[in-house]
């Protein structure tokens, strides 16, 4: 009887286990990307895009035949203008912020596109940008394809042309028809072909942007994880009328708007809070309080350049121009991973991966060096300066990539200089890469900027980049002990009391003194008592 019961029970259990519903497929693999474009138009079927096209401009005309306002919209953007005027938003505060953008500010990499348009404009979203200061360009000069094509084959050439040209002659052109018919909302690749290669090399400039983000895994970026959420850049950097949100020129270090649901605000999704809110930690309430003082990125991006690629951390132009026999550039030197460490044209470079960021108080304002203002050549020249501090309540601690280097300057006028580096043609002896002649290259560059004494020297520079991409899975986020200890990540940040890191030397000295005195007193008292006890016997 008992056996029968046991058997029955076993059968019941077996049936139950077999009938139990299978767990749902893991959200990472099977789930459709929430960012998949839900378009109502198949561009490959549009008559206007059937071609044939000889130039990019012809494609653009075809686009504009439907998207009537797109050209005008694009030409208002920083992406097109390479100029940024915060005044337009009623934000004009300081003269140095009045006009920014690639045309105005210097950087610690290739320094400036001024007089180097031919090379730099391969990343401009236009065609034939020879000199933006004088160019009068039409709407058909807008390059729709670089942002919207989805074949992955489109590539830009000098002056931003989609076809390789020698003068006005077209030497090679891509299959514009099939490229034009592939268009869709911009993917990671569209943005990445330029933004991942800033500083003229994969990953060189930003530290948190490089080609590893084309197909990142969860460890590299939880949001862009190709097998998971698979975010595009524009999932967060959402655009209205081609104006892409989230410019570094207009940052928000603190976002009190919270989660941006429709109708909530005019804010975009380029802050963590715009999706996660200001109390995102469900388990530990204290972490939500950290949101007031610590940017999300500080803990959730524990290191930058984590995708295997290196980022450039040092570029010394002063060593550039070393020539070997017959006045030819010496062979390129490379580190073990193949990154250039010395190039005659560029000078000395250093590269790092898995870099721990530097941490600074940041209120969202970055002041860029005004190239016309005098510098202090004895110090380190800050190409850009981040503002903020512990006491104003508008700042949070942010992670930064800090770029170091040495740039040429004019020791007589005490100003930074721009220089002509890329030759326009084989006869262009002003170009540094051609003649390796600093005064000549600088003179050519400064012709368009301001006075140059003819003398040059080199000065140490720094440049700061707020880190905000490559968000790690929460398991890899920083913990309390990473900062709340002496020698932790925030050791260099002073001016405020950080528990676990800071203490009071005087209190410690007096306190421990009292403790030792008490111990000594007790010990002596006890000792005398023991001695007297034996004497009494």
């Amino acid at each position, binding site marked *: 009887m008992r056996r029968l019961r046991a058997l029955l029970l076993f059968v019941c259990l077996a049936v139950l286990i077999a009938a139990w519903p299978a767990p749902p497929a893991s959200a990472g693999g099977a789930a459709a990307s929430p960012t998949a474009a839900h378009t109502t138009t198949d561009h490959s079927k549009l008559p206007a895009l059937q071609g044939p096209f000889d130039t990019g401009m012809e494609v653009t005309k075809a686009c504009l035949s439907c998207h009537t306002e797109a050209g005008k919209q694009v030409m208002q953007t920083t992406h097109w203008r390479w100029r940024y005027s915060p005044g337009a938003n009623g934000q004009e505060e300081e003269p140095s912020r009045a006009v920014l953008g690639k045309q105005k500010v210097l950087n610690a990499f290739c320094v400036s596109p001024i007089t180097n348009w031919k090379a730099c404009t391969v990343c401009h979203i236009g065609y034939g940008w020879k000199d933006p200061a004088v160019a009068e360009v039409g709407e058909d000069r807008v390059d729709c394809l670089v942002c919207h094509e989805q074949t992955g084959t489109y590539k830009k050439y000098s002056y931003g042309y989609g076809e390789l040209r020698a003068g006005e002659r077209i030497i090679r052109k891509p299959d514009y028809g099939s490229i034009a018919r592939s268009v869709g909302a911009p993917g990671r690749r569209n943005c990445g072909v330029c933004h991942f290669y800033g500083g003229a090399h994969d990953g060189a400039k930003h530290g948190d942007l490089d080609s590893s983000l084309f197909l990142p895994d969860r460890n590299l970026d939880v949001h862009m994880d190709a097998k998971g959420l698979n975010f595009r850049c524009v999932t967060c950097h959402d655009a209205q009328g081609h104006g892409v949100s989230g410019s570094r020129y207009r940052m928000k270090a603190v976002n009190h708007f919270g989660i941006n649901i429709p109708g909530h605000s005019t804010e975009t999704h380029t802050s963590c809070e715009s999706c996660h809110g200001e109390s995102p930690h469900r388990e530990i309430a*204290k972490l939500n*309080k950290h949101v*007031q003082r610590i940017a999300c990125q500080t803990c959730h991006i524990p290191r930058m350049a984590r995708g295997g690629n290196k980022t450039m951390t040092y570029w010394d132009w002063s060593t550039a121009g070393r020539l070997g026999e017959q006045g030819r550039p010496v062979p390129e030197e490379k580190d073990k991973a193949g990154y250039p460490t010395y190039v005659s044209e560029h000078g000395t470079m250093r590269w790092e991966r898995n870099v721990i960021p530097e941490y600074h108080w940041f209120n969202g304002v970055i002041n860029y060096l005004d190239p016309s203002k005098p510098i202090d050549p004895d110090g380190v020249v800050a190409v850009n300066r981040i503002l903020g501090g512990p*006491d104003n309540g508008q700042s949070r601690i942010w992670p930064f990539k800090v770029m170091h280097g040495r740039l040429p300057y004019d020791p007589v006028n005490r100003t930074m200089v721009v220089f002509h580096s890329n030759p326009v043609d084989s006869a262009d002896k002003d170009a540094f890469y051609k003649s390796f002649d600093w005064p000549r290259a600088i003179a050519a560059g400064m012709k368009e900027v301001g006075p140059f004494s003819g003398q040059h020297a080199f000065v140490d520079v720094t440049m700061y980049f707020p880190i905000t991409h490559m968000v790690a899975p929460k398991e890899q986020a920083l*913990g*309390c*002990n990473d900062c*709340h*200890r*002496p020698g932790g990540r925030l050791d260099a940040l002073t001016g*405020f*009391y950080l*528990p*676990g890191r*800071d*203490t*009071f030397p005087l*209190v*410690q000295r*007096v*306190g*421990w003194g*009292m*403790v030792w005195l*008490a*111990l000594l*007193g*007790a010990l002596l*008292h*006890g000792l*005398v*008592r023991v001695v*007297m006890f034996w*004497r*009494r016997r």
Partner: protein
Amino acid sequence: MASHKELFFTRFERFWHWGQALLVLILMFTGLEVAQAYALLGYADATHWHNLCAWSLICLWIFTIFWHIITGEWRQYRWTTDKLGAVFHYYTTGIFSKKIRYHPFKKTRRFKHNPLQRIAYLLLSLVIMPLIGLSGLLYFYYDNWEQIALDRTLLSPVAAVHLCMAFALLVFIILHIYMSFTGTPLMSQLQAMLTGYVVIEDTRTEDREEFTFLLVTEDRDFAQVVLHGLQVPPPGMESLHMEHAVTLKEGMQRLEQHSYDMVMLDLELSDGPFLENIARIQALDLDTPLVVFSGDEAYGNMELVMRKGVVDFLIKQEIGRNTLIRVIQHALFRIRFDRCTR
């Protein structure tokens, strides 16, 4: 030497004491880690346990404060300087002396702490604990300072006060632990705190050195007789100190603050009817023999009074030195006998 046990520390007091001891030790250990005395647990675990124990201690305090108010035991911690000099003298010299000296403070259920303890515990509970608790709470609620309009840059001084008080507490703990081993026998204090029972030595008169009696009478002539009669201490007593209270009110006040070896109460007091006076003194629940005096006229009430539990009833007119000595010896013997048989 005969002795008896008395319950000094109730179950709650022991729970409180040892609970607090455990919590304070964990708090001290984790707190000093945050103050960088060592790096064992790491900040995250240290603060986690520190917060947990701090909140537990606050709960315990709420119960304890309530208990002290309800039971009236808060009186144990009232400020006093009575015998302070003697106690201090005992710990600084007497304890080392060749001849065995007795602790000048005779602890009773009503006066559990000697004046040095009282001052130390009062300092602990009025200065150190409130300051460490308040600074700790402010520290804990740092993120909400805006709501109480407190400047966030004041975190540093708040943390400094917390640390200062922590050191004060640590000094207290060290001395407290050491002092707990100054009893006779060595472990007696620890044992008392563990079991709750204190062993009271039933010191015979010849073993004792100093005695203090309280005489309560309005009759100054009679007071003169008693004081005069006992000017020379009875045989076996090294010294006898007589204190004279003129009213029952004054006597009660003294009884609340000091401990006496014997109370001598005149039944003819203008404070009230004598039976009520006796009841009021007995309501103090003292462990002190009570001897009453009366003129002739109350003689008829002797039986009634004796039934109230007084040790002896004397007629004023019959009193001389010999009578007094006999009454004292008898009273002290009887109280010892009572304790033994309790």
